[in-house]
């Protein structure tokens, strides 16, 4: 187990290093320098600015500085908003995104499981078809389109929910629903197929033969085992929620990290783009690692150290 985690950590660090390095060099070759917008700076001032941000050093020194700073969790200043550092932006925006993301994950998991279980229990009946049509629709409609539809019909036309902003719980319902729609559909499909597989196992037949009721069999025997593939989906789920938040926060005017990120892209605020990308990558890689470890703990059939799954 320790060996496995060590190996995975090594890969994670390699991937992260690749991301940090790539962001660093990408931003250097990106068109325009950070002060292009300041129109015609006197050379002395530009030299001072460069010195202030360490841009007068050779590239390898800058690269080394950047690596060290990232390792110390310091993403540097924002080039566009002089008084704000990237860390400030993350500290201010991430809690908002986190609440929204958590809500979306809860919705996705809860409704996805319910839909999937109903579909499997009523296999090939109308409940199954309805659930699967909902699932295919959820997968096909991109989250930002779901968001605009929800906003237009439920908020603007019917006025059931507030249109935008992030103040009360009611403000979070529509964005969380929009974020959850695609992952919910994936979870529903996963749960259904894994439930169907589990339900055909011998131990379910044994449970039936013992005279257990359908409810007990489903809850005690089937769902527990059917949940395993759903756990593996938690990694991609986090990724989906995270990237989904870029657009959802933009649509609903939520001051989270996602909307800061999109603004920084429009502004070509390179340090923010770099910092937030690295920050997101760390979260993603860490959550995928956590999910894999959790999976190994939940399912004793999987030997992590051997690297062979299932057999």
């Amino acid at each position, binding site marked *: 187990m320790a060996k496995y985690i060590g190996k995975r950590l090594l890969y994670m660090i390699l991937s992260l290093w*690749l991301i940090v390095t790539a*962001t660093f060099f990408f931003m250097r070759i990106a068109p325009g320098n950070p002060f292009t917008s300041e129109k015609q700076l006197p050379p002395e001032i530009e030299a001072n600015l460069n010195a202030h941000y360490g841009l007068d050093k050779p590239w390898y020194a800058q690269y080394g500085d950047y690596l060290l700073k990232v390792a110390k969790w310091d993403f540097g200043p924002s080039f566009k908003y002089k008084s704000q550092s990237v860390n400030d932006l993350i500290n201010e925006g991430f809690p908002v995104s986190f609440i929204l993301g958590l809500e979306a994950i809860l919705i996705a998991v809860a409704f996805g499981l319910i839909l999937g279980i109903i579909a499997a229990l009523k296999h090939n009946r109308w409940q199954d078809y309805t659930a699967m049509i909902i699932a295919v629709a959820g997968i096909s409609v991109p989250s930002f389109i779901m968001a605009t539809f929800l906003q237009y019909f439920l908020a603007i036309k019917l006025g059931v929910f507030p249109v935008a902003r992030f103040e009360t719980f009611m403000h979070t319902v529509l964005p969380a629903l929009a974020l959850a729609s695609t992952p919910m559909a994936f979870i529903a499909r996963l749960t259904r197929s894994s439930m169907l597989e589990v339900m055909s196992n011998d131990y379910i037949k044994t449970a039936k033969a013992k005279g257990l009721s359908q409810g007990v069999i489903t809850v005690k025997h089937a769902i527990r085992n059917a949940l395993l593939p759903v756990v593996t989906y938690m990694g991609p789920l986090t990724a989906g929620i995270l990237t989904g938040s870029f657009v959802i926060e933009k649509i609903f005017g939520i001051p989270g990290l996602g909307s800061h990120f999109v603004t920084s892209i429009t502004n070509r605020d390179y340090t923010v*783009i770099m910092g937030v990308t690295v920050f997101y990558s760390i979260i993603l890689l860490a959550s995928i690692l956590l999910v894999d470890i959790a999976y190994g703990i939940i399912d004793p059939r999987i030997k992590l150290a051997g690297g062979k799954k299932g057999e």
Partner: protein
Amino acid sequence: MQISKDKFQLVGTKISEAEKISKPSLSFWKDVFIRFRKNKLAMFGLVLLGVLIFMAIFGPYMTEYDYRTNDLTNKNQSPSSEHWFGTDDLGRDVFTRTWEGARISIFIGAAAALIDLFIGVLWGGISGYKGGRTDEFMMRFADVLYGVPYLLLVILLMVVLGQGLGTMILAMTITGWINMARIVRGQVLSLKNQEYVLAAKTLGANTSRIMAKHLIPNSMAPILVTMTLTIPSAIFTEAFLSFIGLGLTPPLASWGTMANDGLPALRYYPWRLFFPAIFISLTIFAFNVVGDGLRDALDPRLRK
């Protein structure tokens, strides 16, 4: 189980005729087609796809407008017999632009799938066939690259390379091929020790012939499914990027840019967002159900 009598038929009493196969033998692809045709949802997706592709080709010619000419006297018109899907804030016809957008979305999807196919088959094929150190190195490289979050990398590349159709396809395929490579490698690994490959080797076939004649054709089923499912994800990525302002440059129309332009006007001119939104969803839906149907038809063991 009830089996009715008329399912059985006397084929003849002579011994020579008893062994005759009475039904025409089906090739693999015919069999796949028959299974696919039975899947109603997949057939619906295929028809829908046909309609969408037809409209992408002919749609822009169905009106007298073109996608880039501004007509400021007619801006933000609601759908009418004059402008079927209304007009946008520069007076451009939304119907024409929607089908221009279809061309671009489908082109991006197809291009990304083909490039992924090319690199993935090459990389996965070599890695799986050579095995040993080559395999180890090639797959570790893929693993590290795979760890990089896809959409973040694409966003980063778009920021650096600048907006445009070519850079978008490049950004999508730079890590997009890994999935294909892994699938091809898995297939090649399981096929390369089969007897017919050994037979081909004994007959003197070289590596590239074995790959092209035996290994790749036998991996066609998962390759095809992966390709079909790459297209909707590429279409989604395009729309997503355009929606956060990293898409194509105006006046080019894509569904993502149209949706992005339409968003601020959602309250008053909802059609400007709804038409592209509906067609993005329909296209992704069609490709998804065709892909699912193809997977079930190609490998009925997987059907749930």
